[in-house]
């Protein structure tokens, strides 16, 4: 009897651990499969970009050969030298750089200033301004293309850098909201201390609030730059002159007179995407931080 009584108890202790071990082992198999699927997914996701880059490094005749060469049979940079020297891509690059950097500087500056005033200063109309900024989340900017175009024509800014830049400044409100949140969280004691030292509002902003939030300023600047560089619809509408086009518009709207050349078309696209890809790879953390902030999730 005693043996019968002890067996289940012993069985429970001894039998429990293999069962538990079995559970853990099945979990590991599930986990392993999940990892493999995730890695395969990542390869699938990255493959089109890899394939495009590899294609640009091939000789045009090899590209149209049957069969799949995952690595160039004959390696060449012809596509890039052709695109760089025989198309207007250099000019388009300058246009993109000038407009994207201007948009970035202007948006960040005016948003930081406005965000500071709304966060720290008392002035009539502050509440209304804040609510208007929050409400502007809702305005779909592509719906404004017609009237932005009318405006740009009235100011005779068609086919100019300024014409490309100005309507993109309406992407500011989100930046103001983020700045306000960050300025709100600067400790009040610092402000009081600066007040005792007789600092005026400009010193307060430039010497205290802005330096304390350099991190968010760089994050916002990077994401604004990427957004401005990637703009398609507005630069496409505001410019018809080939010399004034942004690189994203130029490479799709101006076709080579020599017919389809796969390596060249892809090469020009790679060159167009390279600056933002580099910016992303250097500032990965900042980019993800800024994206989450603009979606309303505080990192």
């Amino acid at each position: 009897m005693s043996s019968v009584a002890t067996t289940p108890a012993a069985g429970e202790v001894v039998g429990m651990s293999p069962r538990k071990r079995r559970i853990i082992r099945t979990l590991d198999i599930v986990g392993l499969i999940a990892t493999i699927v995730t890695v395969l997914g990542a390869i699938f996701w990255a493959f089109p970009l890899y394939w495009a880059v590899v294609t640009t490094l091939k000789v045009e005749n090899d590209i149209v050969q049957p069969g799949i060469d995952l690595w160039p049979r004959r390696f060449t940079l012809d596509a890039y030298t052709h695109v760089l020297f025989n198309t207007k891509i250099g000019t388009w690059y300058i246009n993109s750089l000038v407009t994207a950097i201007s948009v970035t500087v202007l948006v960040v500056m005016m948003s930081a200033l406005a965000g500071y005033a709304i966060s720290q200063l008392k002035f009539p109309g502050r509440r209304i301004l804040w609510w208007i900024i929050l409400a502007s989340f809702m305005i779909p900017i592509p719906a404004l293309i017609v009237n932005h175009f009318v405006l740009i024509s009235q100011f005779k800014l068609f086919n100019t850098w300024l014409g490309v830049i100005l309507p993109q400044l309406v992407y500011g409100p989100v930046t103001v909201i983020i700045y306000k949140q960050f300025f709100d969280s600067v400790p009040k004691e610092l402000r009081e201390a600066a007040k005792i030292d007789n600092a005026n509002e400009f010193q307060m902003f430039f010497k205290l609030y802005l330096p304390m939030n350099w991190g968010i300023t760089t994050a916002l600047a990077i994401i604004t730059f990427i957004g401005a560089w990637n703009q398609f619809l507005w630069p496409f509408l505001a410019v018809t002159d080939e010399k004034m086009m942004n690189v994203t518009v130029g490479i799709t709207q101006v076709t080579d007179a020599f017919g389809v050349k796969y390596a060249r078309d892809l090469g020009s696209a790679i060159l167009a995407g390279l600056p933002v890809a580099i910016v992303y790879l250097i500032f990965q953390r900042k980019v993800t931080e800024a994206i989450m902030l603009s979606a309303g999730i505080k990192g």
Partner: protein
Amino acid sequence: MSAADTANDVPLPARKKRFNRNEVLAALIFVLPFVVVYAVLFIYPTLQMIWLSFHKAPLIGPGEFIGLDNYFKLFKDRLFGVAFWNTVYFVVLTVVPATLTALLIAIGVNRLKGWMQSLILACFFIPYILPVSVVFRVWGWMFDSQFGILQPLIALVAGDNVPVFRTLPLFMPTVAFITVWWTIGFNILLFIAGLRNISPEIYEAAALDGTSKWRQFTRITWPLIWPVTVLVLTIQLIAQFKIFDQVYLFGNGGRSDATMGLVQLIYRSAFQKNNGGYGATVAVVLFLIIVVFSVLQFQMLRARGEK
């Protein structure tokens, strides 16, 4: 959002002199650039858009007031119907798949550690930061009807190479698929942030109780990630209603009406047919559709913030 509380916290003794003159002056200088830009490039064009929609007018130049005629015309316009349903079709094809796939990928990526996680996440995320022109060229090459690397696969199913972007029933699904590939990184980021907010102790407790992985997902992960899912869904919805770039580029410069979306109809009416009034009318309708969804999103963001 705490706008209401912060704006109200004027201390009682300061009631008499509510505002400090220097402070107001400084504030005006600080907000001036933003307010000017905002008024000229945001509020003015928005009001003018509504005004223009009541006119029969060319893109540039004076027009004639016609009341609501543009709106009546709109509801009878076959092209508007096509553009509206194409947009809805595109939204349906992208929003739910992009959200669910992103959740699955986020769960997969979130399990990984260290450099492995960064590398895998970068693979999924990098398309998102690329301009549409790159996406257009890269996938144009993948699907190229002669030499595209996907054509052998397509030929296996269809028996022959298929010019995907010139085959109407395949056009929208393919562009939707490419859009999901392009933009999913954003959704993945939001989901990963959401998953990291779930305390690991809940999973540990569940594992001790012998709860299966599937039940852990349905009983813990899914309910706790639901608010993020709703956020991602609405952001996607709003973004995809504004579809233009990819459809325009893959549709060969929008030469075919059959693939037209709402923004493209604005472009077509105002810029190609020089009918600014009608273009503005379509814009107002798009505007209203998006405002409705945005109000929903805003309410949810507020709900999240108050929690």
